[in-house]
């Protein structure tokens, strides 16, 4: 039971800051607060969807989670083991259990190598399998992601976008990982192909008992695949909860605006959804606003929001909101 309850991945007040410029630059040395104090718990078998506008830090967080970036502050725990400061060699046993799928499969696959070779690479690095066993495993993986056996000898450019993403997925699952971080895995694909990949990911999750962290800017896709949602704004999580609940009754004013902005196909022309248009742009993470990061654009901000930063607190079982005045009622 204890095993079951232990989160597979946990971040404790994780922050990632980048320094830009030098002291000789016109504006001196500055710090970008890309991810700011994120505490997130991912349980085995669930899919956590990360949503937010571009520049909100969701991709940076994803890269921190698989330790592609070094973490500035806070802790990252994988099955209870602190892997925040582990060296590359110490990380190797964790790497095979923690994989990532990238947005653009044509950029993440080496164009000069055959795709069979690309999928075999993690097996060669992390296992002691013979070349025959590797070939057998690659064939298995191709079958699993819906590619044909003779595709092994092809080069990435000979595939369509959807097939290339299947190769990227095959490579990520080659080592039987426990957790896969998917950074915009369907955004670069044709609309008619997206659903195939979404279904494939769901099938693989069921078959291989995978845990996903799913990042996408397309909110309807995120809702479809996720069991839980974390909404990010300017490097921090502003709302977290079960996917369908957050979409049905968003509690943070930012989540409300974000969800209301999604254009949906209306078959009945009568019903008009209420749309919240946010004023201004996302502030620069170089100079985040005081108090609540969202207050300059928030329709319900008061003086207190300018001064005091709201913590992410649990308001109802499973629903966390970082807002002084959360509305936990149906929004529309």
């Amino acid at each position, binding site marked *: 039971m204890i095993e079951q309850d232990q989160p597979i991945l946990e971040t404790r007040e994780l922050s990632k800051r980048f320094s830009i410029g030098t002291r000789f630059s016109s504006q001196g040395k500055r710090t970008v607060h890309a991810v700011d104090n994120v505490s997130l718990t991912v349980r085995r078998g669930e899919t956590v969807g990360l949503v937010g506008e571009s520049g909100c830090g969701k991709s940076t967080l994803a890269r921190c989670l698989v330790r592609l970036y070094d973490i500035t502050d806070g802790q990252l725990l994988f099955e209870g083991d602190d892997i925040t400061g582990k060296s590359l060699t110490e990380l190797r046993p964790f790497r095979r259990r923690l994989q990532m799928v990238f947005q653009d499969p044509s950029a993440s696959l080496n164009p000069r190598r055959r795709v069979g070779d690309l999928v075999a690479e993690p097996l060669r690095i992390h296992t002691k399998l013979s070349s025959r066993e590797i070939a057998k495993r690659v064939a298995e993986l191709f079958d699993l992601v819906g590619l044909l056996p003779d595709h092994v000898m092809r080069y990435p450019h000979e595939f369509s976008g959807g097939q290339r993403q299947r190769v990227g997925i095959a490579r990520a699952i080659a080592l039987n990982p426990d957790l896969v971080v998917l950074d915009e895995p369907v955004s670069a694909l044709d609309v008619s192909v997206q659903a195939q990949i979404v279904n494939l990911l769901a099938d693989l999750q069921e078959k291989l008992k995978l845990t996903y962290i799913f990042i996408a*800017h397309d909110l309807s896709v995120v809702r479809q695949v996720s069991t839980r949602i974390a909404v990010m704004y300017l490097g921090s999580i502003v709302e977290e909860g079960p996917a369908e609940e957050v979409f049905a009754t968003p509690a943070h004013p930012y989540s409300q605006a974000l969800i209301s902005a999604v254009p949906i196909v209306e*078959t009945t022309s009568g019903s008009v959804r209420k749309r919240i248009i946010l004023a201004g742009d996302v502030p620069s993470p170089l100079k985040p606003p005081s108090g609540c990061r969202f207050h300059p654009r928030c329709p319900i901000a008061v003086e207190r929001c300018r001064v005091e930063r709201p913590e992410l607190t649990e308001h109802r079982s499973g629903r966390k909101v970082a807002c002084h005045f959360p509305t936990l009622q149906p929004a529309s």
Partner: protein
Amino acid sequence: MMLSVRDLRVSFRTQEGLVRAIDGVSFDLREGEILGVVGESGSGKTVSLLAVMGLITDPNAIIEGSIRYRERELVGLPARELRRLRGNEIAMIFQDPMTALTPVYTIGGQIAEQIRAHKRVSKSQALERVEELLAEVNFPNPREAMSRYPHQLSGGMRQRAVIAMALSCNPALLVADEPTTALDVTVQAGILDLVRKLRATHNSAVVFITHDMGVVSELADRVMVMYAGRVVERGSRTELFSDPQHPYTRALLGSIPPLTGEKPRRLPAIPGSPPSLLRLPDGCAFGPRCPVNYEPCRTGKPVLGDGTHAAACFRVQA
């Protein structure tokens, strides 16, 4: 009719043979109307509108058919005359505002230049007009924005600057090619509002190209769905979304995950991927991916019928 396109064909001579990017596209656009053009990459939605704008200058391109704009034939019109129309009466917004703006001039300078290319006004008059335009596209501080360079603005701001430029000569026709695809949904909502406002205040006609069915359903009066260089379905917004006819339109609408209500366990996906224009299947281009198994589709190419709501599908027409 403001714009009348008849049997437009655009082909490109390539090393691998002739690529038919557009294969017999016809459509009409009335004054003040918003037409949504939906399709995936390679469906020909961009090429057909580039042809309308006279922006296909590739010597290997072959353009056939007729494009009539306010009773004037645009196909074969000398470049000089086209230039007079373009930017003045017809304006275009592109997907990526960063490449549509020059990085080395200020926003104000670029828009003023565009105005002075078409209207005989002084520099200060042009700059005054720029300030008005930027205010119209909701720049909080237009005067300050005029002295900014494109890289100093956010993506949404840049796209609004491009729209301001497109509006500078009060175009009668605005062609927008995926203007919100690179933007966040919250920013997109603002841009869509702007397009609606533009139609209301200037009575401009708009051709809006997108791959997002949601955007079309919110914005367009009439919709045209394209696949592999042809129009597969056309109709008013209500006709198309409440009663989609073509199997491709139906499948595409069905494959979008819902934002509210019950989550389907699996999405109804379309098998395969859009065909390469070099190797189009025999018969209907959608045939190999179509859930309907019907004999005539394997050999003949279905043609779009007449009427406001029509689908190029043998099964529907049968």
